[in-house]
């Protein structure tokens, strides 16, 4: 196979894969942080009302 074609295909697949993983990881991180903060917000709301 032509070396340039191989270089082209690997370049495309690596960068696509890398970017996709980066997006996925960041999305999960943010989802977790949001869940955490929402949970603590509920607790805080709960406590504020009673005070």
């Amino acid at each position, binding site marked *: *196979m*032509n070396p*340039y*074609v191989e*270089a*082209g*295909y690997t*370049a*495309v*697949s690596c*960068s*696509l894969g890398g*970017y*996709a993983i980066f*997006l*996925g990881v*960041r*999305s999960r991180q*943010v*989802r977790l*942080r*949001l869940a955490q*903060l*929402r949970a603590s*917000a509920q607790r*805080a709301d709960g406590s*504020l009302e009673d005070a």
Partner: protein
Amino acid sequence: MSRNAKLKRGVGITALVMIALTFWLGLYVTPPAEVMGNLVRMLYIHPPMAWIAYLAYGITTAASLLYLWKRTRRREWDLIAAASAEAGVFFTGLTILTGSIWGRPAWGVWWTWDALLTSTAVLFLLYLGYLALRQVPMSETKRGVRSAIAALVAFIDVPIVHESVYWWKTLHQTPSVLNPSLNVEVHGSMAWTLLLGFVAFTMAYVWMVWTRYETSKRQAELADLEVERAIRERLSVEEVSL
């Protein structure tokens, strides 16, 4: 997992499968061209990238226009514009990369001021500026309005850049016989693979923008929660001091 997330995952998986299929077809099944031999296989990964970059910038501009118009101004449009621009810059980068790899054997050098590569490079810089503008800390509406205007200015410029660079190049050398995307006759299985490539990468683009959009939407919600907390703090200080 909500229906929405399932759908998004479905899009992601379909994209993955279709890309794999395109690669398989592109590399092994389709015949090499007479003149260029196997090099023609770059056909399946270069033009789709450029097409998606333009698609991405079109969506960014549409979302920016919707955001600019007061009646339809919603935070979502601003976030979609940003997510699509980010994917657009990514795909423009890939267009330049695959373009120079494809051109390398033909021109003997990684970069030539060929019309296609140059206009794509300017496109890359245009939207890089847009992303840089978005990174600057500002209030949300200020950032929304300003980046929407920057997106408008950039999108109007795309055809002008294209026009001037092509004049600049074609007036000089006749359209170079070896210019990769011009003189390739596409038929039969090659055409199908190319079409598949377009669809596959478009699906990948959709998945990327969707994920990026949801992430930034959640980040915005995070910011709202922090604001609420700051408000509660200030209120509690208020109650104490009364």
